[in-house]
């Protein structure tokens, strides 16, 4: 009962924030609404018993990625020039494309849920979201992907430094 009230509240918040992300013209407002949306997503993770994921989500997305976004927007002073708008036709096309995608996905869900509804009822509880369980899985079963992702981080770090450097003669 409690969790479903929370679920609907968070979903409404997420939905509204996501719409405002898309519809607000000022990039800074977009980014701040996106932060709000991230909080709602973190709340959903907690409801889905993935507390560690929620904490990491807030630290990485809200604490790092969105700060970088705001940094870029503020440094480039993008808020001054309001974003140029597409014509109504393109917006309509976008709406149709997004809507069709939604319809297709919901349709697929309707078909599949009729077949497998019986085993959807299981709910894990207890230790799943705990750090120890996750750590064991991450460092035993997923060790290679974990190490590979660290190489990816290194590549992104070097790439960002190279791209961000001022070129000679600029």
């Amino acid at each position, binding site marked *: 009962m409690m969790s479903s009230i929370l679920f609907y509240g968070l979903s409404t918040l997420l939905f509204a924030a996501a719409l405002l992300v898309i519809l607000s013209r000022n990039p*800074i407002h977009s980014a*701040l609404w996106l*932060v709000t949306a991230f909080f709602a997503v973190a709340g959903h993770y907690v409801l889905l018993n993935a*507390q*560690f994921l929620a*904490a*990491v989500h*807030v*630290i990485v997305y*809200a*604490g*790092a990625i969105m*700060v970088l976004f*705001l*940094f870029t927007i*503020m*440094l480039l002073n993008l808020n001054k020039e309001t974003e140029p708008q597409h014509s109504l036709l393109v917006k309509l096309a976008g709406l149709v494309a997004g809507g069709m995608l939604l319809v297709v996905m919901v349709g697929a869900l309707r078909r599949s849920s009729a077949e497998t509804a019986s085993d959807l009822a299981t709910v894990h509880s207890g230790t799943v979201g*705990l*750090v*120890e369980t996750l750590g064991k899985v991450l460092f035993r079963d997923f060790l290679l992907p974990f190490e590979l992702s660290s190489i990816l981080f290194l590549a992104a770090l070097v790439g960002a430094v190279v791209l961000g450097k001022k070129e000679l003669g600029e």
Partner: protein
Amino acid sequence: MDLVWLLYKVAFAAGLLGLSLGVAAYSTLGERKVASWIQDRFGPNRSGPMGILQPLADGGKLFFKEELIPGVSNKFLFILGPGIAMSTALVTSAVIPWGRPLSIGGREFPLQLADLNIAVLYVFAVVSLGVYGIMIGGWASNNKYSLMGALRASSQMISYELAMGLSIIGVVMLTGSLSLNDIAAAQKGWHWNILVQPLGFLVFLVCSFAECNRHPFDLAECEAELIGGFHTEYSSMKLGFYLFAEYVNMFISAAMMATLFFGGYQVPGLDSLGLSQNVAALVGTAALFLKISVFIFFFWWVRWTLPRFRYDQLMALGWKTLFPLALLNIAWTGLYLALRGFK
């Protein structure tokens, strides 16, 4: 989840808020007293005996000042900025264990608002959100000095967050838990983490100065070059919120340092005295506050002793010195655990 429990939690939360604000208010007085002592002068001594009413006078002054909102700024964000700064500073205290549980009428009342199993991560999540208060405030002021101050402050905070996070990993490895309660409980007797984690503590200490935007890393304000930095345009109680948030952050960092590295509420040899549970718990809480005040004094002392860093020196220190040191600390802790044998 009965009524007594609920009431206790609400009362405890209110008490924590009041405590944080009270400690922050009297930190301002203490800071000025220490400053005057270091600089060989009297300091505030007019309002009340020894100037103990000075924080009230300052607060009242801030309340009654004229409130200026720059006409061109984004009003909502301008007001949101100090609010975020204050609330992120205040919510961290929920996961810190302030003492052993009290036993009243056969029930255990823990002196901790929420024993999260990911408390350390929670603290980091909240700390990383503190950047928004400064960034939004600086941007909404629509002033280039404010924007520069905000950008400096936030790049400083996200840079030092990394080294800070890595410096705690050693403690987490030793305890095997992310819960602050477990970390404090594991330091019973003389098993304080500082004894095996001196390097981690050093990195954490320096990083917490940077995270609180305190001297010698207060480049965000830098009154000499940025006229107050991100809060240049703020006045009245909004300015008060920013200044206050800094002191609350200082209190929380001191509490975190005491809990993570100096045994929290543990007092060596307390159990051998044979005190009753409640008295022992209160002695432990008093010890925790003693440790916290030592660290807060250290914050003041540093402020009136060291000159301010230059911005490039600050970044070089964070990335080229503290970050490798924190990595070294993790390696050393791993070696220590391997030699000692995992528990």
